[in-house]
C-alpha cells in the first residue's frame, strides 16, 4: 500500500502570493422615495431566478418597552395570520404557490415583513407584503394561539444559557433605557390585548420614512413600476419618536451570576457600552474587534481555544443599535476554567489598549475585513443585509462603495486609540450563567457579585456575602 506520508517527498514550499485584486462592482442600485415617503432601494442580482423583498418600519420593541415589552414582536407574529381578504390558511397557501417563504419580525429598533421567492412570482410576492403591511386583521383566535406559543418559547429561552447571558448583560448595560429589555415576562405577555397589537400596527406600520429593499432577478425599471403600483397609494400619518432615558455609566467591574444548577458548562459574557455605526470611530472599532476576537484568526480564539482548549466558541462583537452600541465578548467554557477565561479575556483587552498592533497583524486584519465585505456582495441575502444596514442606520450613500477604502486607511494608532476608548476593561460588566457552587468563587475574584435565578429575579445573597457587603 502506498502511503502519502511515507512516499511524499518533503519539500519546503511557501504559500503563493495573491494575484491582482479584481474590482468589486456593487450591483447598480436604483433608489426612489415614493410620494408617501416610502424609501425604495432596488438592486439586481441575477444569478438565480429568485427575489428577496424586505419591508422595514423604523419602530420595534424599544418604543413600547416602558409599557409592554415585546409588543412589537407579538404584533409582527400576528401580522402574518390574517388580512381583510386572506385568512391565515390562504396566506400560507399563496406563499407556497409562489415558491415563497415569509418572515415577520421585530427587533429593538425596527419591524419587518420579508419574503423570498421565485422571480416569476415577483408581483404576487410584493402584493402579499403590501396586504400584510396595510390590511392585517389580527384575528382573535390566531392571537390567542400565538400568545400561548410565546409562553412556551419564553420558557425554552429561560433554559438556554446564551439567551440568559445576553438578557442579563442588556439589563446591566442599559438600566432604564428601553434597550435593557430583550424579552417580556409571561405576565407581560398575558396582559397584551388584541387592541394594543392593532394600535401598534396602525401607528408604526406606515409608509412614511419606511424602507423597501428588493434584491434579485428583475429589471429595475419594471420593478420600480410594480412597487409604485403596489405601494404608491398607501397613506398613513407618521408619529413623533419618543425620547429615551440615557443608559447608566457604570464604574468598576461587577459580576452578575445567573444560576442554572447542574449545568456542565458556564456561559461567560463580558461587555461595555460602545458606539453606533454613525460614530466616526466605527471603522476603527470594527478593525480592533476583528483583531481581538471577531475573526477565527484573532487573539482571543488563538488564546483560549487553540492554545488553552477552554472553549469551542469564543467570539467578540460590536452590536450597533440605533441609539447606542455595545461591545461584548463571549465563550462557553468548562466550569473549572471560568476565572482563567476571564483573566485571558481581560488580558487580551488590556493588550489591545496598551501595545500597538504589529504591522503584519494589522495588514492581515484589514485584508480580512475588506475581503469578507466583498463576499457579502455575492449572495442575495448578503446584499439585503448590507443594503438594509446602510438605509436603516441612515449611513452616507457611498458607505458600501467606500467601506474598503476606509478600512485600508486605518493604522495601528487608530486601533490603539479606539481600544482605549471602547474596550473598557476597568468598567466592564461580567455575566456568568451556570452552576453557582462550581463557579461563584471564581467569579467573585473579578468584582462584587449579584446573583439571579433564571427568571431574572435577584436571589438573596448567602449570610457570608451579607456580612462582607
Amino acid at each position, binding site marked *: 500500500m502506498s502511503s*502519502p506520508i511515507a512516499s*511524499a517527498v518533503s519539500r519546503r514550499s511557501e*504559500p503563493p502570493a495573491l494575484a491582482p485584486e479584481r474590482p468589486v462592482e456593487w450591483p447598480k442600485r436604483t433608489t426612489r422615495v415614493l410620494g408617501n415617503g416610502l424609501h425604495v432601494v432596488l438592486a439586481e442580482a441575477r444569478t438565480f431566478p429568485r427575489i428577496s423583498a424586505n419591508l422595514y418600519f423604523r419602530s420595534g420593541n424599544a418604543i413600547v418597552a416602558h409599557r409592554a415589552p415585546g409588543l412589537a414582536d407579538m404584533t409582527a407574529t400576528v401580522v402574518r395570520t390574517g388580512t381583510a381578504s386572506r385568512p391565515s390558511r390562504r396566506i400560507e397557501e399563496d406563499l407556497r404557490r409562489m415558491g415563497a417563504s415569509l418572515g415577520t419580525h421585530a427587533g429593538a429598533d425596527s419591524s419587518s415583513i420579508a419574503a423570498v421567492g421565485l422571480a416569476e412570482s415577483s408581483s404576487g410576492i410584493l402584493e402579499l407584503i403590501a396586504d400584510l403591511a396595510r390590511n392585517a386583521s389580527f384575528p382573535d383566535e390566531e392571537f390567542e394561539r400565538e400568545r400561548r406559543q410565546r409562553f412556551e418559547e419564553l420558557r425554552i429561552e429561560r433554559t438556554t444559557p446564551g439567551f440568559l447571558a445576553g438578557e442579563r448583560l442588556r439589563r446591566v448595560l442599559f438600566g432604564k433605557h428601553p434597550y435593557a429589555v430583550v424579552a417580556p415576562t409571561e405576565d407581560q405577555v398575558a396582559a397584551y390585548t388584541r387592541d394594543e397589537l392593532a394600535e401598534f400596527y396602525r401607528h408604526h406600520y406606515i409608509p412614511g420614512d419606511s424602507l423597501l429593499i428588493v434584491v434579485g432577478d428583475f429589471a429595475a425599471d419594471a420593478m420600480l413600476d410594480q412597487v409604485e403600483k403596489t405601494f404608491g397609494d398607501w397613506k398613513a400619518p407618521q408619529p413623533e419618536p419618543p425620547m429615551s432615558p440615557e443608559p447608566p455609566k457604570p464604574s468598576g467591574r461587577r459580576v452578575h451570576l445567573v444560576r442554572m444548577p447542574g449545568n456542565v458548562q458556564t456561559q461567560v459574557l463580558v461587555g461595555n457600552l460602545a458606539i453606533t455605526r454613525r460614530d466616526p470611530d466605527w471603522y476603527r472599532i470594527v478593525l480592533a474587534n476583528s483583531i481581538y476576537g471577531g475573526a477565527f484568526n484573532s487573539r482571543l480564539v488563538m488564546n483560549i481555544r487553540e492554545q488553552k482548549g477552554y472553549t469551542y466558541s469564543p467570539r467578540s462583537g460590536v452590536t450597533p443599535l440605533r441609539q447606542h452600541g455595545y461591545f461584548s465578548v463571549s465563550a462557553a467554557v468548562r466550569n473549572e476554567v471560568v476565572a482563567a477565561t476571564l483573566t485571558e479575556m481581560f488580558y487580551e483587552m488590556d493588550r489591545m489598549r496598551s501595545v500597538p498592533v504589529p504591522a503584519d497583524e494589522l495588514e492581515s486584519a484589514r485584508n480580512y475585513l475588506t475581503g469578507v465585505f466583498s463576499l457579502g456582495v455575492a449572495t442575495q441575502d448578503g446584499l439585503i443585509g448590507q443594503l438594509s444596514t446602510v438605509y436603516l442606520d441612515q449611513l452616507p450613500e457611498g458607505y458600501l462603495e467606500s467601506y474598503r477604502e476606509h478600512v485600508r486607511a486605518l493604522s495601528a494608532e487608530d486601533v490603539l486609540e479606539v481600544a482605549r476608548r471602547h474596550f473598557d476593561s476597568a468598567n466592564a460588566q461580567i455575566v456568568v450563567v451556570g452552576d453557582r457552587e462550581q463557579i461563584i468563587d471564581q467569579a467573585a475574584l473579578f468584582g462584587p457579585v449579584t446573583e439571579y435565578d433564571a427568571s431574572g429575579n435577584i436571589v438573596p445573597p448567602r449570610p457570608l456575602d451579607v456580612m462582607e457587603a
Partner: protein
Amino acid sequence: MNSSPSKSARTTASPKSASHLHIPVEHTTLANGLRVVVSPDHSAPVVTVGVYYQIGFRLEPRGRSGFAHLFEHMMFQGSENAGKMEHIKLINSSGGLLNGTTNYDVTNYFESVPSNALERVLWLEADRMRALKVDDENLRNQRDVVKEEVRVNVLNQPYGGFAWLDLPPVAFRNWPNAHNFYGDFADLDAATLADVQQFFRTYYAPNNAVLLMLGDLDPAEAFALAKRYFEDIPPGAPPPRADVTELPQTEERHGEVQERLGPLPAIAIGYTMPPRESEDWFAAGLIDRILHGGRAGRVYRKLVLEEQIAVDIDGGADLIESNGPTQMVTRIYHKPEFTSEGTVAVFDEIIEDLQRNPVTLEELDPVKVKFRSDFYSMLETGMGSHMPRFGLMHFLACFTLFDGDPHRINTILDGFLAVTPAHVQAAARRYLVPQNRAVLFRKPVNLPAPANSLVGKGGAR
C-alpha cells in the same frame, strides 16, 4: 469536459413545466485519482473552494465514536508547510472565511475568498492532503475543544442533539448507522496520534476525494492549478467501506431519552427512506414537503394550527447528501397537557390520510413550485450569506462522490417535479409504515405546570 458560455445559472422554466437548470459544470480526474469539478460564475469577484473526502461519521472505526469529527479538527492543526493556525491565518488574511464539517458520508473543508486568493487556497488544501503534521499537544488541545463543542451544542442546550444524535440509535441496528456520532468522551480520550495518522493514510488520499472550485475563475486555469498543486500527491489504496446495510426491520422501534433543561415534551418520528434515486426516493422528497413544508405543510397545519397540540414542528430528509440508510424525521414539541402517545396518534391520522387518498394536484403543484424555489435558495447559499454557492458545491460533491456525475445538478430537479399523485400514494403506502419507522420520546425531567394555567379564556391571568 464540456463548457458552457452561459454566465450564470439561468432557467427556462415556466411555472408549470419542469425547470431546466443550466449551471455550467466541468470536471476531470487527475492521474492520482483526485476528481476536480469547476463551476464558473463571474457575477462577483469571489470563489468558493471545497475539498470533500468520502469519509463521514457513519464510516468511522468501530469503538472510536466521534473520531471522524475529532479528526476534522486535526486537519486545521498543521500540515507539511503550514503550521498550527497558519491555515486559518492565511485564509483570513486573504480576506476569506473557512470551515469544515463532518457528515454521515463525507467530511468537507471549504473556503470562500476574493478570487485573487484562489491559488493560495489550493496550495493550502494540497499541503494538508499531502501530509498532516500534528503532535500530541495539538491532539490534547482539540480533544478539549471538541468536548466543549459537545457541551455547548448538546449537553448544555435545551433539546441539544435532538434528534440527529438521539434517533439513529433507536432507528438502526448496524453500528455505523447507530452510534453516537459526536463521540463518547471515553472514546475521544482513547484517541492517539497514531490513530490520527492511520486515519489520514486510510481515508485522506486524493483518490478518495473531490476538489471543487466555484465562482470567479477560468475553468482551464483552474484545472491547470489543480494539476500543479495536487497531481503529484501519491494515491492511496482504495479505502475500506464500512458495510452500512441494515437488516430488514419487522416492527416499529421505540426509544425514550431525558430532556434535562427544556420544559416541553418532544417527539421524533423517523421513517427510513427509499434507495437513492429510485422512483420512491423522488416521491419521498415530495412527501417530505407535503408533510413539512412550512405552515402550509400538513403536520404544522394539523398539530399546531388546527388541533393546537404542538407548539412547533419541523421535519425533513437529507436525501441528496446521504449515501446509505437515512430517515425523514419529524420533530414535534407539544404542550405538556397532551400525552406523547396521543400526539403520535394524531400524527398517524395525517399519515393514514396520505396513504388512503391521493394528494390533489391543487396541493401537489404548489408543493413542487416551493420545492424548486427552495432548491435554488439552497444552491445560492446553504451556509450563511458569506459562503456564496456553498449549497451548489455541496450537491456537486455528493453527485460526484456518490453517483460519479456532477452534471446531475442540472437534471435532479426533473425527477422530483415528475412525481405524480399515484407515486406519492404508492411511496406512502410502502415507506410510511410502522415496520419502517422509529419513534423517540424526549421527556423533560421537570415538567412544569401547563402554561394554560396562566391564561384563562379571556386571556388574562
